[in-house]
């Protein structure tokens, strides 16, 4: 949010009331860089539950031990107004250092990893392998009647892969949730 701009499109009656009904809901991926101190994840998650925001997926791990930095990637949904509030509220949390809007950043990259267990024999088994190849999924466990595939990619691609596996004997799925980073040589 730039705090200097006068919002454009102001008619003579320029009160922009925050009527939530006519704003459409958008999906957004946020990277939240935090001091890795006790309770920091609970603060971030508590903010979402306490203020009624959605979390579609969440990943977290320490990414820089020397600086005690952890990176939390959150996929959320909301109207543009809510999404603006989410970013501002996140920055109020004392150990939050930075919030990056991955979705609206030209250089944002999002990836997810899925482990997909498929059981079957005969034609279905062959078809499962063939599709896995198209999706560049690796086989990480095999029995006579099952495979476990490891697939990475954009979330939609993984969902597509999983949907294709459904009629071929899909047993169970484990997904990491979205990870994010930005292209280029710069940090964050």
């Amino acid at each position, binding site marked *: *949010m730039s705090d200097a701009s006068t919002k454009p499109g102001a008619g003579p009656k320029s*009160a922009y*009331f925050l009527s939530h009904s006519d704003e459409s809901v958008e999906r957004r991926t946020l990277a939240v860089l935090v001091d890795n101190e006790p*309770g920091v994840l609970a*603060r971030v998650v*508590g903010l979402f539950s306490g203020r009624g925001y959605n979390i579609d997926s969440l990943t977290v791990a320490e990414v820089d031990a020397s600086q005690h930095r952890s990176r939390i990637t959150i996929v959320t949904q909301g109207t543009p107004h809510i999404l603006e509030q989410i970013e501002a*509220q996140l920055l109020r949390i*004392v150990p939050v250092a930075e919030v990056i*809007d991955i979705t609206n950043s030209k250089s944002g990259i999002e990836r997810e990893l899925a482990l997909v267990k498929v059981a079957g024999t005969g034609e279905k088994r062959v078809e499962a392998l063939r599709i896995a190849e198209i999706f560049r999924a690796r086989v990480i466990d095999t029995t006579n009647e099952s495979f476990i595939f490891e697939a990475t990619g954009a979330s939609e691609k993984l969902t597509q892969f999983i949907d294709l596996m459904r009629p071929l004997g899909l047993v169970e799925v484990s997904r990491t949730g979205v990870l994010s980073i930005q292209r280029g040589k710069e940090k964050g």
Partner: protein
Amino acid sequence: MNTRTKAKPAASEDAAPRTMSGAQIVVEALREQGVSVMFGYPGGAVLPIYDALYGQDTIRHILVRHEQGAGHAAEGYARSTGQCGVALVTSGPGATNMVTPITDALMDSIPMVVITGQVPTHLIGTDAFQECDTTGITRSCAKHNYLVTDVNQLARIMHEAFYVATAGRPGPVVIDIPKDIQFATGQYIGKAGITKPTYVPQRTPKAEAIKAAADLMTRASRPIFYTGGGVINSGPRAAEKLRELQALTGFPVTSTLMGLGAFPASHPDWLGMLGMHGSFEANNAMHDCDLMICVGARFDDRVTGRIDAFSPDSKKIHIDIDASSINKIVRVDVPVVADCAEALDALITEIKALKRQLPDLTAWHSQIDGWRARRCFSYKNSSDVIKPQYAVERLYALTKDRKTYITTEVGQHQMWAAQFYHFEEPNRWMTSGGLGTMGYGLPAAVGVQAAHPDALVIDIAGEASIQMMMQELSTAVQHKLPVKVFILNNEWMGMVRQWQELLHGERYSHSYSESLPDFVMLAKALGGHGIRCDKPDELDARIQEMIDHPGPVLFDCRVERAENCLPMIPSGSAHNQMILGEITGNEIGEAGRRLV
């Protein structure tokens, strides 16, 4: 911009290390932070800290009667001095009793450091005696909190807590210290250079924002300042700058409940408080203005009324140090993220530099005079029974020329206090605005009196609210804090009764106290002085007796029981739909009924 980065770390330079116990580190850090008064209550998990307080006299410890009292006292101390309040309580029930004042301080942005004892580290998680998950419980109601697990981090955490509590938008910070950490020996480090690199609020406004704001301000023909508690929190300089900017522009000023005193009530351009029980002129001016300059206020629902009918024709400038307050409830045209004093100062400079002829405001001022002429706070006085409005009017008349501090409880009396007691200076008015905590006023008064021993400190109370923290009169007696409790005793939870009249067809469910204490005897029992008055013509003499009494006083002022607090914007209505005269019971529609 996709990336929002907070400012870069400041280098920390530690003073030469000294070794001492954790408990001594706590006391040493408090001393170095300049704490001269703290409020607390002992228990097993804080005994080492109490031991470290024993026999020293740099920090005065006020022993309360209930931990909630310690929290509100720390709030009152902070609000009246601009310094950080400090409270010390034990684990388990001591900590849970602090949850209300911590939440209260968060809602009203009061800087406060709360130290809680915790069971020894090795017992955490075992449901040990008087264990509770203090950091878990207070995570959402404190600005920040810490569980100390290493005695060598204790000094840093103490100093960091003071920084976090006071930097940016102030708030409560909790430090939970296990008992073994209090006993352990560790290194003390000084406060020099200790901040929180991930928390560096933006204090100075962006130049473009100030330019855009000054441009609007020099073109507006129906402008209004809408000011809030942020002006008080920012410090006395903000109130000075507000007065200076107002003198430069001649714009009328209204304020929230929390902002009273930032602008002098005696000024001809003062419109009085706005909002649900605000003045007719303030609310109508907010509704009809063409430019609203919001300074350190947050568009609370008690202020805005019906949001889709809120000030429909105005451009809006919003100055706030907390970026999340901006565009939260109402979209604004010019957001200014900054400390109030800095932003107001920059606006003064910018407007002067523009050298622009300001539009003529005569028409606007005369429109406002028209609203003023309705005399919205007028009431029918009586010679038989004391009207609550009259009681506050007399209290004001008899105390205004002294150094007086007012605290309140919550209810009708609080609103009458806001309407009929007038403030010329900031930091003189302490009330629970955001949380609306009954029981706040007396302990807050104890805190104020501890900070200002020679001042006249009065809690304007209701007979129901006062019973929530009544025991703190005993604290006042013990510590020779001559607070005055002025109870507007209407025998009802008046504000509840008023809403039941308005919304529930006069079905007065559980809002009448069948049995009330004899407050005069109660005052005596607690070691204070009791006064009762039920005759309008004796009121002045009794108030004078209260002022002249050297110790704590409980004043049972018997007032008209069925009086309603007016004017009022019924919930779900707009600023220009105030009830002025009588309540008929048909004011609130179906949608409004569901609101609080």
